[in-house]
């Protein structure tokens, strides 16, 4: 079900090492994400999945290696970091909507402040994306008045309002009640169909099968396997990947 993606790399990580103090969290990570490509990142707890995607938008700093996003080589300068963050949206497990702003205000703040879009244009864009995640009628509500699934869809819309070139998802459905997982996954599937470049940390293997171009498996800070979903699920090469798949499939 995967779509053709261009051969041009949008995100490149090469030889990335990351330490938290003495703890070696990412070990020589190489990963290339092509424009339009959808990657599902999985692996046991503590393997470094969140760390990896948080390095891409510089929520974490790296000590070795190189990360290039849309032709911009990340360093620690505010100018470069801001440039990368403008092009990369992120969705968190815990939504992180701003509680004191309405849904609409959540969606218009960054475009107005960062992209200097006029309030009217920002609102129009926000309404467009809120419609797209099918939550247009809740625009004037506050986050606390929405269900978890609705909040996460707003968070997706909020990120899209910046018109990013890529979207990072860190376990976007893990904090949701089971009955709300599908509405969020459906939104993400829609986004994938439109050709958005996506890196998703998720254990939703159905989603991976449906949209991923590649499944990347991590353990102990290393990428141990990367393959198309069919190959990965049918015939995982790495023994740790086999164990991992066995465990999560037993849970589902």
């Amino acid at each position, binding site marked *: 079900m995967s779509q053709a993606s261009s051969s041009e790399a949008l995100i490149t990580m090469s030889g990335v090492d990351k330490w938290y103090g003495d703890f070696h969290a990412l070990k020589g990570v190489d990963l290339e994400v092509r424009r339009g490509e959808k990657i599902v990142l999985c692996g046991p707890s503590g393997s470094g999945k969140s760390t990896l995607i948080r390095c891409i*938008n510089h*929520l974490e700093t790296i000590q070795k290696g190189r990360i290039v996003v849309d032709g911009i080589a990340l360093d620690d300068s*505010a100018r470069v970091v*801001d440039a990368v*963050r*403008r092009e*990369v*949206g*992120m969705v*968190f497990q*815990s939504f*992180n*909507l*701003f*509680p*004191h*702003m309405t849904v609409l205000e959540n969606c218009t*703040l*960054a475009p107005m*402040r*960062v992209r200097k879009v006029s309030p009217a244009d920002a609102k129009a864009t926000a309404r467009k994306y809120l419609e797209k995640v099918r939550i247009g009628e809740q625009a004037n509500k*506050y986050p*606390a*008045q929405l269900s978890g699934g609705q909040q996460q869809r707003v*968070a997706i819309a*909020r*990120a899209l309002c*910046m018109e990013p070139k890529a979207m990072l998802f860190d376990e976007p459905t893990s904090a949701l009640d089971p009955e709300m997982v599908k509405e969020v996954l459906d939104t993400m599937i829609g986004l994938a169909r439109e050709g958005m470049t996506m890196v998703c940390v998720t254990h939703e293997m159905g989603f991976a099968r449906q949209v991923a171009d590649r499944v990347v498996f991590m353990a102990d800070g290393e990428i141990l396997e990367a393959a198309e979903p069919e190959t990965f699920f049918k015939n995982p090469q790495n023994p740790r990947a086999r164990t991992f798949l066995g465990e999560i499939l037993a849970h589902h």
Partner: protein
Amino acid sequence: MGYTLDFQPVIAGLPDLLKGCAGTLLLAFSGMILSLAIGIGGVAVRGSSVRTARWAVIAFVELIRNTPFLVQIYFVFFALPLVGIRLPPTPTAIIALGLNGGAYAIEIIRGGVQSIHRGQIEAGLALGLPRRDIFRFVVLRPALRAVYPSLTGQFIMLTLTTSIASAIAAYELTSVAKLIENESFRSFEVYGTITLLYLLMSWGIMQAFGLVGRRYFDYPVK
């Protein structure tokens, strides 16, 4: 042992006492605004990446919180002229009250900022917002909401502290009361009356804060 109450001087001085109340409220509100500005600005600087600025804020807070207000107000009163700034007592008192209240406000608001979930800041960063925008638009309002009761308490405290400004003869209720007492020797009646007036003002300010808080922080939370 007859102490006969005589409220005649108080009644005669009531217009002056009420003007004194207005003076007190002027000191209090001006002091609060200055405190709030110093509090918010101080917290912003305290969280900045400029180390000397951070230390300056910490030193300021420690200095204010570990010295008596009476000494602070005298210091401002006598130190400003030395650097060529000559101000009447009332503006001097406002500055002293603002500095004092500001130091406490910094500590209170900082607590509020620390109570904000890290994910809020990360969401702001991920959206590309610069740090000062994250402070201003994402963190500040929920932080103030979280500490609003403490802030209200601190500002009631500031209102009562205005009476110390009588030491430099700023125009406020306690100075007015001292004058009436000096002329009439009706200490009990005079101070009894202003006790009541302070109580009423505190209560009024508390109500006002409640009203403002309900408007400004009127968003639902889970």
